[in-house]
């Protein structure tokens, strides 16, 4: 299982939690598992998110690996000017 930290504005869609556990081996599985466990998060993930894995911000890659002891943060989708 992997601990996924949510930004606090998402607590309303995750039963009041800002840290949840999912069974996943990569970023894509993390996002799918989040939607499965907390359907309220679907609109957020569909709109686009980035995922920070062990300090590295993954802007879009779903195949980036995630380990059970990885530090994982869901983040707003990064863009720029």
């Amino acid at each position, binding site marked *: 299982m992997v601990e996924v930290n949510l930004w*606090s*504005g998402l607590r309303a869609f995750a039963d009041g939690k800002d840290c949840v556990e999912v069974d996943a081996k990569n970023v894509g599985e993390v996002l799918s598992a989040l939607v499965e466990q907390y359907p309220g998060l679907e609109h957020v993930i569909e709109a686009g998110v980035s995922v*920070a894995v062990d300090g590295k911000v993954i802007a*879009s890659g779903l195949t980036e690996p995630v380990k059970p002891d990885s530090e994982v943060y869901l983040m707003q989708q990064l*863009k*720029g000017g």
Partner: protein
Amino acid sequence: MAFDDTKTEDFKVVGQRVKRPDGVDKVTGKAKFGADAVAPGMLFAAIVRSPHAHARIVKIDTSKAEALSGVKGIVTRADFATGLTGGDLDVLENVMAGEKALYDGHAVAAVAATSQLIARDAAKLVEVEYEVLPHVTDVDKAMAADAPVIREGAADQSVPEGMHANVVRYHESGHGDIEAGFAEADLVVEDSFKTEATHQGYIEPHACLAQLGGDNKGELWCCTQGHWNVQKLCAAMLGLETSQLRVTASEIGGGFGGKTAVFIEPVALALSRKTSRPVKLVMSRSEVFRATGPTASTSMDIKIGMKKDGTITAGQGTFRLQGGAFPGAPMEFTAMCAFAPYNLQNVKQVGYDVMANRPKQAAYRAPGSPMAAFAVESVIDELCKKLGLDPIEVRLKNASKQGTKASFGPTWDRIGLVETLEAAQSHPHYSAPLKEGQGRGISCGFWFNHGGETSVTLALSEDGTAQLSVGTPDIGGSRASMAQMAAEELGIPYENIRTTIADTATLGYNEVSHGSRVTYASGLATIKAARAAVKILCARAAAKWGIDEDAVVWENGCAKPSGPNAGEFDPLPIDKLTRSMGRTGGPIVGHFEATPEGAGVSFATHIVDAEVDKETGQTKVVRYTVVQDAGKAINPAYVEGQFQGGAAQGIGWALNEEYIYGEDGRLQNSVFLDYRIPVASDLPMIDTVIVEVPNPGHPYGVRGVGETSICPPLAAIANAVSNAAGVRLKELPMSPPRILAALEDQANNG
């Protein structure tokens, strides 16, 4: 992306100040920009724009315009695709109004004619009947209970119940116990700040030439930061198959984020399809101001607690951003960047995305971050003054570093904030004496940087030179830096590489030139493509020598046996291998396609000296130093140029630039005479210091530099001006009337 073949030293071409290959063409007028494109039988277009900030479109009568000799076609919203949703619908709604005009300058129709003059005259003959509606342009007023609703149902699920319908997105993040943090502090400072919308001020207005047939196959030439994005959006707006529209990017006269969107391109394509003629559409400066994408305006509340020794115990920020009549103001970046430079145990940031009757905001260098720095760094400066602490020492004491936790959550990898602060502290500027009436300010700034989808091809020519095709428009000298990286890998002179910005039919998808990603992502792809070509060269040499491919190495532009055991052969230079490539296996081409995810973040520290005339309120920036982490400067001259450009734009944003709306909701200053951007005589020489803390996610350690340079200026200048004037300036721009008002307020109220 991990690199087992990272190179950090012994560079031969990388790090040199080579001249950009497009420089001569640009200064002699030979370079072809968006408005330079022509085609036989070309028509000229003009757009009919709303004079109202908010109005229902009751009726559009085009009969008089159509009757004008030379008019070949008119389009309205009815000529675009239907059934779009989400972001695509918002883009179309902005490109061409549907039921309502949502801001002054919103496009409602467009005309194509045989001359520009006829097109403009015909546009005036298009009769639009409006039902004028109440409007709002200020962010705080747009959130108030009595504000007119701009678009019903635009809010997403993140918005808490009870908010006004103009609040369309909400963000909240942070960690720790914010109240306990404030209780630990010896001093808590709380204040509110506002910034006005500014424009990127690129010198080249938007321009394009479109050709689209009834068979829905088309060509588009335009000035853009990302032509694959233009292709995708235009295909959606016009109901085309994406691959049937080929888009070529012209040279670009500045973008800074403002050319990451489409405004006129779908309109020109629709007119072309309707008239069966090529259509050219060029914006005027006034149209650029009224109807492209300025940055968001903001209203912010900041509260920070500090101990007497300078330790920050808690930080809290509320950020309200107005991004025009559509969702998308970058409040989440404002929130996430606000406290990023500091290692805080207790931090909370809240953001609101608010709609108002203004043009849809677009990105502008590190969207959202400069405003956050202005507010947070102003309060830190105030705390330092009140506690008698050195502002750099305080920032060093609290600085984010590898292993500390970012204000938005993750643990930092290797970052270079401390190095920029130490470099600033030891710079002669920081200890130089100030004259009477002058003040000094410093600020830190942060931006994430970005990777993104990237595709590059490197083809070797028979003479041993190379053609490099990249898909990211060159907005800051990237052709030079790409060629430097290719030359470094191939071991050939920089001049032997020609870099071309390829069209959408030539390469795989390339994300926009944004997010400071080009030198990082296209650079990484260039290195990988060159290494792929080198692998083929080594294989050809191995075949010629009859040895194993692994027994060949590439050094200084030659294939060589890897050691004595590999055999004794004279080195084979690149041109000997390429001259025979047609007979030894065919053309030698390296390519690389990926979405690099290792863009390293970047920090900067700026030092500013400013002088304030207390009688007139006029401010002059007298000395400016930029210190920024570039990871590895591929071409130091262009890195310094990015540093200086960010500072120059920041000076304009801080002191003079602003969108001014009248009571009628119309933009009052839509030309450069009234919208005051800094010119050379307004600026001091901007000194630069390049810090190089390598990014582990790039083979040479590159970090993007284009955006971070605009993060600290607003705050650093505000701190300098406040120290010079003797009063805290809380609203941007710090124009003479605002400075005089602040001085008067201080005199009256203490």
